[in-house]
């Protein structure tokens, strides 16, 4: 079947959408944007293909009336096993790369000991990380770097101590290797990994879930569907760095506008708060962009502002929102400058103000900046859609609802759980139109 791909190369994450001939979204993929945008694009695209295969498999299972009671659970388990395959493959790559870096030139007479230690580290990482893919286990992130990095760091200390090796240097080997591994294009053997994942699953679960034959057939059918990549459109901040010709690139403004329109046809104003920029877009009834404004040179009011605050408070970015929700009173943060806000935060903490209250104020402050960008673009007149990473932050969403209500009265505010894919959805739709409507 013909399929259409949209890739949104953002400053922190890269997203891909695979759309089929019926304009249905078949799969979504996301990865961290890295120094190498080509790889980020390739990885996100592959993730979208993986997701599409699972969608096709779901369809097969639903149609085949195979008698499977809990398709969701089966797919979850299959994906888990698939991820293990994928993880182990990349871990092996990382191990090989680390060993390549562990040269005599670097470690002199300790070379052999280092190589031995690396083997031991990777043995332990494989063991421990493998547990993450057990049934019922929870993974905080599916990004390889996050999982491998945290385990490597955890075990390397002990191994180095035992082997009396310099910890810093062993970490340096990892730091070098991970960049290389992460920036290597993913291997193509997608179907193989799904098949092996299925085998693992069957061993793990025994034969009682359903007849393996009918399941096997469903998987085979799903894997047999040919996904013909008809057209790709790239967008996002890093789009100029994509190896695409001009016709295959659209500005993120157009893509976000169209993406939001596809999600909610009534949308007239879109606010996107991403890592590097904030944009307000006005679209007409057909998703055509009428006007837009982006944040000025000042980064205050972007996702990065919250990142900076999280760093400043030494907590995770995802912990900010929940903590801010506990605010009991409104603290006014006056500094619009990101750096000054950090200083103001310290000042207020030193004065004994409550952390949650301050964070509540910071969330309001970031949304205040967004409000002025919305105003510059022409304000809010009708249905309003909020997208981007910050739309996942409930404290920010609450502040937005409050301020929109105060300034523009009652309007519908849409926030899609998949809002992070808005740009890539618009891009995929442009890809579809380039082929099907031309």
């Amino acid at each position, binding site marked *: 079947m013909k399929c259409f791909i949209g890739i949104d190369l953002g400053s922190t994450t890269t997203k891909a959408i695979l759309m089929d001939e019926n304009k249905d979204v078949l799969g979504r993929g996301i990865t961290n944007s890295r120094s190498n945008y080509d790889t980020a694009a390739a990885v996100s695209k592959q993730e979208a293909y993986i997701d599409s295969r699972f969608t096709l498999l779901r369809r097969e299972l639903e149609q085949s009336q195979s008698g499977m009671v809990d398709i969701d659970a089966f797919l979850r388990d299959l994906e888990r096993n698939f991820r293990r395959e994928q993880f182990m493959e990349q871990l092996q790559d990382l191990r090989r790369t680390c060993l390549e870096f562990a040269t005599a030139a670097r470690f002199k007479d300790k070379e052999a000991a280092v190589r031995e230690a690396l083997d031991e580290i990777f043995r332990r990482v494989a063991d421990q990380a493998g547990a993450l893919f057990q049934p019922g286990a929870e993974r905080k992130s599916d990004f390889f770097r996050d999982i491998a990095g945290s385990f490597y760091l955890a075990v390397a200390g002990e191994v180095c101590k035992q082997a009396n090796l310099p910890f810093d240097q062993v970490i340096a080997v990892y730091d070098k290797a991970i960049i290389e591994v992460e920036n290597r294009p993913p291997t193509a053997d997608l179907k193989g990994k799904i098949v092996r994942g299925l085998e693992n699953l069957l061993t793990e679960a025994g034969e009682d879930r359903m007849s393996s034959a009918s399941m096997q057939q469903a998987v085979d059918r799903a894997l047999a569907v040919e996904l013909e990549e008809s057209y790709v459109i790239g967008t996002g901040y890093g789009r100029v760095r994509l190896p695409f010709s001009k016709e295959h690139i659209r500005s993120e403004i157009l893509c976000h506008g169209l993406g939001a329109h596809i999600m909610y046809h009534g949308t007239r104003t879109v606010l996107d708060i991403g890592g590097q920029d904030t944009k307000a877009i006005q679209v007409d009834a057909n998703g055509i962009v009428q006007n837009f404004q982006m944040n*000025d*040179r*000042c980064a*205050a009011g972007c996702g990065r502002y919250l990142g900076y605050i999280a760093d400043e408070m030494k907590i995770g970015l995802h912990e900010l929102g929940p903590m801010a929700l506990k605010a009991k009173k409104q603290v*006014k*943060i*006056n*500094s*619009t*400058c990101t750096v*000054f806000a950090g*200083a*103001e935060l310290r*000042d*207020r903490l*030193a004065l004994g103000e409550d952390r949650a209250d301050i964070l509540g104020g910071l969330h309001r402050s970031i949304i*205040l*900046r967004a*409000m*002025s*960008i919305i*105003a*510059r673009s022409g304000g809010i007149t009708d249905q309003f859609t909020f997208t981007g990473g910050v739309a996942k932050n409930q404290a920010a969403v609450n502040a937005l609802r409050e*301020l929109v209500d105060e*300034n523009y009265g009652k309007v519908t505010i849409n926030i899609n759980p998949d809002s992070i894919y808005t740009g890539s959805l618009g891009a995929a739709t442009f890809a579809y139109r380039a082929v099907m409507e031309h």
Partner: protein
Amino acid sequence: MATTDQIIQRCQSLFEDLHFTAAREWKAAEPDRKVVGFMPIYVPRELIHAAGMLPLGIFGGGDQIEVIQGDAYYQSYICRIPRSTIELFLTKRLDFVDGMLFPSICDVIRNLTGMLQLIRPDMYAHYYDMPQNYDDRVGGEFYVNELQELRHDFENLSGNEITDAALRVSIVLFNRNRELIKELYILRAAEPWKVPATEAYLLSRAGMLLPVEDHNVLVESYIKAARSADRPRRDNCKIVLSGMFCEQPPLNLIKSLELAGCYVVDDDFMLINRWMQEPVSETGDPIEALARAFLHHSTKTSATYEPIEADKGQYLVEAVRKSGAEGVIFAAPSFCDPALLERPMLQDALNAAGIPYIAFKYAENSGQMQPIREQAGTFADSIKLWGENA
């Protein structure tokens, strides 16, 4: 007799009231009353007053206003005062204002004139261009004609003729006001513990919001109360503040300076209330009198041109000497062209005169006082040490 606390409390509530209730009430008290707002740095309030209107000083929104719409109009590299001023207008807090004067202080305030002309086409918004040529025959002639035009505009706006007699009455009242403020500054320079910086500030700010008649009474009674009040004298150093003539610092900042060990003995807050260094002539042609006073007795500030190089910065050296200060604190609003462009020249003048100084920037909504307290505290300590060793 009212105590300083009572008086200052009244001033503080006027200062905090961003709905300008006092001015609204003044306007509502009689039909056809009009209010004309003005921004720093100087306007002839006498003309507004003589037309039976209330001059109302608009000095930004301070640190208590949440600027939402105002930010939509300004890039990040422009100071705060026009943002909060626009916010005050857009949030209808100034909907009762019938006219606005924007003095020639800098390009940002200048352009704000045009912004208000576009945003509030129903309102009289006038750019008040002061001559930078101080010759009677040249700048003077221009200025007299500008004042006549303004007089004419105000007559139209108020519906009242501005007679010479009425204008002379106004001049007398504002002369009195300037005299009282001068007295207040002299008292503070001599006995700064009796007139805390925030009190002098709030008292001055009240003068931007009240009819001059009321303000004169207020200042008079404050001076009386302050003289007789028994307040502890602290071991503070005396400093002159420079750079705060337009965008206002948060009250907390002024308080912080004093807490850090600095008595403020002179400043450039609200220069309008002592712009004329000499009384305006109360006889003869009142327009001529206002023009002559402006040309020859204006205070010097960063926002005006200094024709004589040797005099550059001498006003600040003079202010230090007159007030018995031991140093200068330059505190300029971020992105303030007049204050920041002028500063190196003022610092050279201070260097030549051997006067120590420090410099920092603020915004009307600055939230962190710790660094300012530290700098001011260190400055005060170093002045004391230096004084002891000298």
